[in-house]
């Protein structure tokens, strides 16, 4: 019976061991499952109570309507409010917000759950201090809370998820609420000029190229009526190449008439905001490059612009004799 000893008995023994162990597992699983489920439930309830302070327990609300971006909705068992989770597409992935509402639909708390937003920009919205700004807001005025500059995409996603959260609240509670839409502000475009266009825009009377290099600035133009000088200045921005190139126009007193970007390949949505009129126009009327604050989140690009304008201001003394006083 070598066959039985070598093949049958090992298989039988191993099978029996497996069956017995499985039975023991089934038994333990059955015995511990209720306790584990209860603990998990308590943990989830504790997380929900963060956005609805004072809540004791929750029950899930079955949603009948299809709401885009809806994750789940829970009703506080004593009826003091609702906690819903809504999702919207952010910059690095979905932005999930857990939002607590009191029975009247006023926000009691907002918490951003896991996200992949950029640290230092979009991730700032995940901080509890930002969510705290929405406490007390309702469906009609939640859009008034400011986003975070430099995190436009995430800020929009945040508001969109909040809008969905209000829809969820409305569906879960049966209260009809008028949800104000997030109005898209027309995004300011970065407009690049050619040197000629910039000169034409800054000095309507036309310019003539100054024949000399002034303080290493190769392109200097004098207004035909000698009322202004324009210079093409460069500085290294966030990237090594290409350099930031600006046309700076100054009147005979040395005050800046205007600044226009020629080359401005800074990071989209961050550094490139520095090249937009809303920032560059702050230099109008300045006689020194130090009067304008750097733009938050775009320090390198702001400082490059400041440096370039500083070059033009430095060179101005050398050409101001060419202008009519």
């Amino acid at each position, binding site marked *: 019976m070598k066959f039985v*000893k*070598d093949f049958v*008995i*090992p*298989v039988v*023994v*191993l099978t029996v*061991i*497996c069956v017995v*162990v*499985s039975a*023991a*597992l089934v038994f*333990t*699983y059955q*015995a*511990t499952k209720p*306790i*584990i489920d209860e*603990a998990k439930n308590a943990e989830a309830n504790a997380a929900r109570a963060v956005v609805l302070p004072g809540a004791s327990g929750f029950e899930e609300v079955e949603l009948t309507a299809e709401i885009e971006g809806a994750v789940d909705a829970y009703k506080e068992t004593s009826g003091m409010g609702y906690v819903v989770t809504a999702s919207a597409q952010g910059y690095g992935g979905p932005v999930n917000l857990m939002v607590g509402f009191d029975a009247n639909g006023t926000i009691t708390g907002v918490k951003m759950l896991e996200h992949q937003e950029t640290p230092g920009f979009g991730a700032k919205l995940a901080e509890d201090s930002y969510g705290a700004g929405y406490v007390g807001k309702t469906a009609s005025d939640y859009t008034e809370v400011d986003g975070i500059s430099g995190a436009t995409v995430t800020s929009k996603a945040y508001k969109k998820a909040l809008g969905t959260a209000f829809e969820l609240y409305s569906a879960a509670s049966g209260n009809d609420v008028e949800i104000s839409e997030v109005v898209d502000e027309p995004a300011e475009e970065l407009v690049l000029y050619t040197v000629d266009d910039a000169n034409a825009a800054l000095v309507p009377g036309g310019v003539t190229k100054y024949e000399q290099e002034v303080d290493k600035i190769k392109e200097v133009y004098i207004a035909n009526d000698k009322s202004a000088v324009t210079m093409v200045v460069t500085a290294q921005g966030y990237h090594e190449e290409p350099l930031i190139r600006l046309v700076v126009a100054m009147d005979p007193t040395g005050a800046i008439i205007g600044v226009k970007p020629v080359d401005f390949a800074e990071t989209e949505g961050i550094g490139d905001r520095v090249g937009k009129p809303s920032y560059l126009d702050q230099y109008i009327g300045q006689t020194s490059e130090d009067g304008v604050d750097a733009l938050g989140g775009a320090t390198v690009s702001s400082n490059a612009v400041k440096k370039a304008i500083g070059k033009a201001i430095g060179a101005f003394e050398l050409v101001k004799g060419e202008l009519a006083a």
Partner: protein
Amino acid sequence: MSKQSNLKILLNGIIKENPVLVLILGTCPTLAVTSLAVNGLGMGLAATAVLLGSNIVISLLRKVIPDKVRIPSYIVIIAGFVTIVSFLLEAYVPDIYEALGLFLPLIVVNCIILGRAEMFANKNGVVASACDAIGMGLGFTLALLCMGSIREILGSGTWFGLQIIPESVQTMSIMTLAPGGFFVFGCLIALVNCILMRKGKKPKQEVGCSGCPMAGKCAEAAEGGCK
């Protein structure tokens, strides 16, 4: 294997054959979970429970399990105990369950447990095997507790969550990170070696095969005399 008294077997595991510090087994969970004393204690006790269960069962079944399928049988038995322990931990001490994370299911392949099954439980009686399991488990637990305590006190200034070093003192947070684990591990091994050598219980080790803690077994195996 010569007959040893059960007490001696039990004490063996704590210092002389300490699984972590002398046999250098189960290093991975040792380094990974000992950033806090309570985690080390939890891991040690979980492994002890599994070791005790598996050693007893394997010892009971040592005449039943055919040699050919002994390793799969041991693994199934050990895995069963590990899963049971992890269910129990999840149900009753979820904090420890969270902290041990992946290392809990990995007890299945912890060398200490399979090692004791293969080296001890399948050749010895139930009582001796249970003593061996308790000794080894306590050795493992003590080593982990020791490492966890040193790392927690130096790295976080606390012990089992109690503030030991005043908060104003800057702690060495490297101790809670992986490098700190290696530092403490190395120092403890040196300490245990030193103690054993002083007592003359351990000859000066040579670098190489003869210095290996398994050298004895290895030589038996080479002579075909493992049994």
